[in-house]
């Protein structure tokens, strides 16, 4: 008994001592940045990954041909390509690669790497593949070692903007090939480099992908052979913290430096708190209702009159109250884009008009409908909250909404297959150009594939407008075209965009250089810490 007791107390003593040592672990010499985020990463392979986290990481590990300025999308700047020309017919873009850039293993960047990366993106046909599909890029060729030419199937003025997207990251062809990569036409079946690229980067960026433990942590380390200005931090860690409340606690105690998923209410609580800074910027995620144009799926909401009625019935001001700093969008065009209708041209609530329209459509007493949406929180905005408000708003005009939240994947499947009659989703522009609106016009990706609104369902005039908008390059004509399209969408569209939450991020005050960008979320190479 006595012996056991002594052993036990020795064990306890050791534990206590270890606790005391470890609890006050001194910061190491390394400069480390910790970002807290609810991880949704699908992959870090540029040909496969298509989530905001992928964008953030690949911005640090790779470069694209051209890029945007640090804090907005106002102009196209050279990156790996130092010069480019566009043919007169707008079909051929020729890029000249600079001499300075090199891959992390010392290899120079050649035209062959560019061709390989683009073709691989196209042929692997994964999530981001559609941005490089044959309907968008007819061919890409190496003219010589430092010159690449892209041929488009038709003129498309947004092409340069598209190339700034991190999915167009230029990878080291030799390294990727050595690890099972291929850009051949059957790459979808034969390429096996994804596992390698999920754990290693083969790029030119200031950081290397050190490791990715899915659902746990992503770790970046400094690229020792970087060709440009070396970044401040030696290591960047992106930690998976699925609960916003936990992210907030970890930020307040200094365990993490940046929290990406706080809700507007949590941000409001952190205003003025010592040691914490808030970034507020324009939002890019448009929350909208989708009304299936197929009468068998949409039922009452496939009727254009009902669709317009619903646009009049929503309490837009209320949503702005729910999400402080948010704005009401004019249309599905992201309001940060040139020519997008702003809040002053958006709908305002008019219950009488809504009821009139419903009566005209043959529903004087309203109707019953089910609203499908994912049970999901997107960057701090809880879709359940909005859904409940939508239910309450529409109840005031007699529309009885039954909420049908689904698991994200289950709901996503219905949505992607165009089987949702009445849905609630959100959208962030893939391309930071007004052309993004075309996804929502008849025949567009979201309109046609998700809601069965096809081009043959509208007037030939509108169809002509759409066609022209796809290829028009003159800036003034474009403004005019998209003005008309937006008006059309407001009157006869099958969508009801109702809110764009502001972008709000919280971070430790000793961080400098925090800049949010709609294309890649955050450029960690710009960050430093006050010493």
């Amino acid at each position, binding site marked *: 008994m006595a012996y056991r007791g002594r052993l036990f107390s020795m064990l306890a003593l050791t534990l206590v001592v270890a606790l005391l040592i470890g609890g006050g672990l001194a910061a190491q010499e390394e400069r480390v940045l910790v970002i807290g985020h609810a991880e949704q990463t699908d992959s870090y392979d540029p040909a496969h990954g298509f989530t905001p986290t992928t964008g953030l990481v690949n911005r640090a590990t790779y470069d694209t041909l051209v890029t945007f300025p640090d804090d907005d999308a106002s102009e196209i700047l050279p990156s790996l390509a130092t010069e480019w020309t566009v043919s007169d017919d707008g079909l051929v873009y020729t890029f000249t690669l600079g001499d300075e850039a090199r891959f992390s293993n010392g290899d120079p960047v050649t035209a062959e790497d560019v061709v390989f990366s683009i073709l691989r993106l196209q042929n692997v046909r994964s999530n981001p593949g559609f941005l490089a599909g044959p309907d968008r890029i007819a061919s890409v060729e190496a003219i010589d070692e430092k010159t690449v030419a892209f041929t488009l199937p038709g003129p498309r003025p947004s092409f340069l903007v598209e190339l700034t997207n991190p999915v167009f990251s230029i990878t080291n062809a030799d390294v990727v090939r050595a690890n099972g990569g291929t850009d051949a036409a059957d790459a979808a079946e034969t390429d096996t480099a994804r596992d390698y690229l999920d754990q290693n980067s083969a790029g030119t960026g200031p950081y290397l992908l050190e490791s990715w433990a899915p659902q746990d942590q992503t770790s970046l380390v400094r690229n020792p052979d970087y060709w440009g200005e070396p970044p401040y931090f030696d290591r960047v860690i992106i930690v998976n913290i699925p609960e916003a409340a936990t992210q907030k606690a970890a930020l307040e105690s200094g365990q993490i430096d940046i929290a990406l998923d706080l809700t507007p*209410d949590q941000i409001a609580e952190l205003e003025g708190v010592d040691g914490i800074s808030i970034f507020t910027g324009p939002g890019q995620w448009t929350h909208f209702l989708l009304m299936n144009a197929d009468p068998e799926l949409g039922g009452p909401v496939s009727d254009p009159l009902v669709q317009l009625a619903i646009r009049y019935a929503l309490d837009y001001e*209320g949503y702005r109250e729910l999400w402080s700093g948010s704005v009401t969008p004019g249309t599905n065009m992201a309001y940060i884009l040139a020519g997008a209708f702003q809040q002053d041209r958006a709908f305002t609530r008019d219950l009488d008009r809504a009821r009139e329209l419903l009566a005209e459509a043959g529903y004087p007493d309203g109707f019953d409908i089910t609203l499908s949406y994912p049970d999901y929180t997107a960057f701090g905005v809880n879709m359940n909250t909005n*859904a*409940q*408000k939508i239910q309450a708003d529409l109840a005031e005009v007699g529309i009885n909404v039954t909420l049908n939240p689904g698991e994200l994947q289950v709901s996503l499947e219905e949505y992607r297959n165009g089987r949702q009659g009445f849905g609630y989703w959100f959208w962030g522009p893939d391309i930071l150009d007004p052309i993004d609106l075309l996804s929502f016009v008849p025949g567009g990706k979201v309109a046609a594939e998700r809601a069965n609104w096809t081009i043959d369902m509208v007037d030939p005039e509108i169809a002509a407008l759409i066609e022209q908008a796809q290829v028009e390059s003159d800036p003034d004509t474009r403004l005019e075209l998209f003005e008309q399209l937006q008006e059309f969408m407001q009157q006869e569209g099958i969508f009801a965009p109702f809110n764009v939450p502001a972008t709000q991020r919280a971070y430790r005050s000793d961080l400098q250089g925090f800049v949010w960008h709609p294309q890649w979320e955050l450029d960690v190479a710009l960050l430093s810490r006050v010493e």
Partner: protein
Amino acid sequence: MSISSTTSSIRASAWREQFAYIGYQVRHHPLVLIGLVIVVGWVLVALFAPFLAPKEPLAQNVTDRLQPPGSRGYVWGTDELGRDIYSRVLYGARITIPAGLAVITIGSVIGVLVGAIAGYVGGIWDEVLMRITELFMAFPTIILAMAVTAALGPDIRNAIIALVIVWWPNYARLLRGIVLEIKNNEYIEAARSAGAGGSYILFRTILPNSVAPAVVLMTLDIGNAILTFAGLSFLGLGPDPTSPEWGRMVAIGIDFFGQWWMWLFPGLAIASLVMAFNFIGDGVRDIFDPRLR
């Protein structure tokens, strides 16, 4: 006095003795009393919620969102959509309490039957039924609940189904153990030698004696069931988002941690009920367990 009136007055005094005995026990187990008061209190609240609640539980008022308790006439403050927390907690009793009771009642009925049969019939039936019981016990709750909810949709009814599937094995095990113990007891031998048949013994002797431990387990479990509903809501599997079910309210509330009234009041409601049932359960065991008298 006549014979019949003597008999009836003896019977009457027997009832009075029973009540006196119970009353004595309750007085000497104050925690049971507290528990009973709380439970009865909540049941009354659930019954009379429409009369007690100042506002509609589903009525949203976005301009009044996140009001602290006491401001603008909201006794316990408002939630993220401007709904009155006090009214929602009152109405929530009408969902949470019956849901917990439903899970436990249905689960225990199934479990008791399975366990009693397994224990009494014995042999191969016992082994088979016990393996099936263990199968359900071994299976991870979360995954089972997820599958049910994904297949049927997030709804309080489906959450109840999911929990019943998870809960009944506990009762089966308990009952089997009790039945096994009682089976070898002397008065069963006596009954059998007096000519009593199988089902007579089962229903008139074994089951009544099993009631007490089962009831103890049931009262303790109601609290657990309610807590599990909260956990399911937290994971997104519980009742629909507008529901004032307490677990739902707490799960949403922690995202608004600084607005403590959103999670504290429903949390206290849950806690008070769980504690009350715990006290009752402990007390019931103390009162009815013959070995402790």
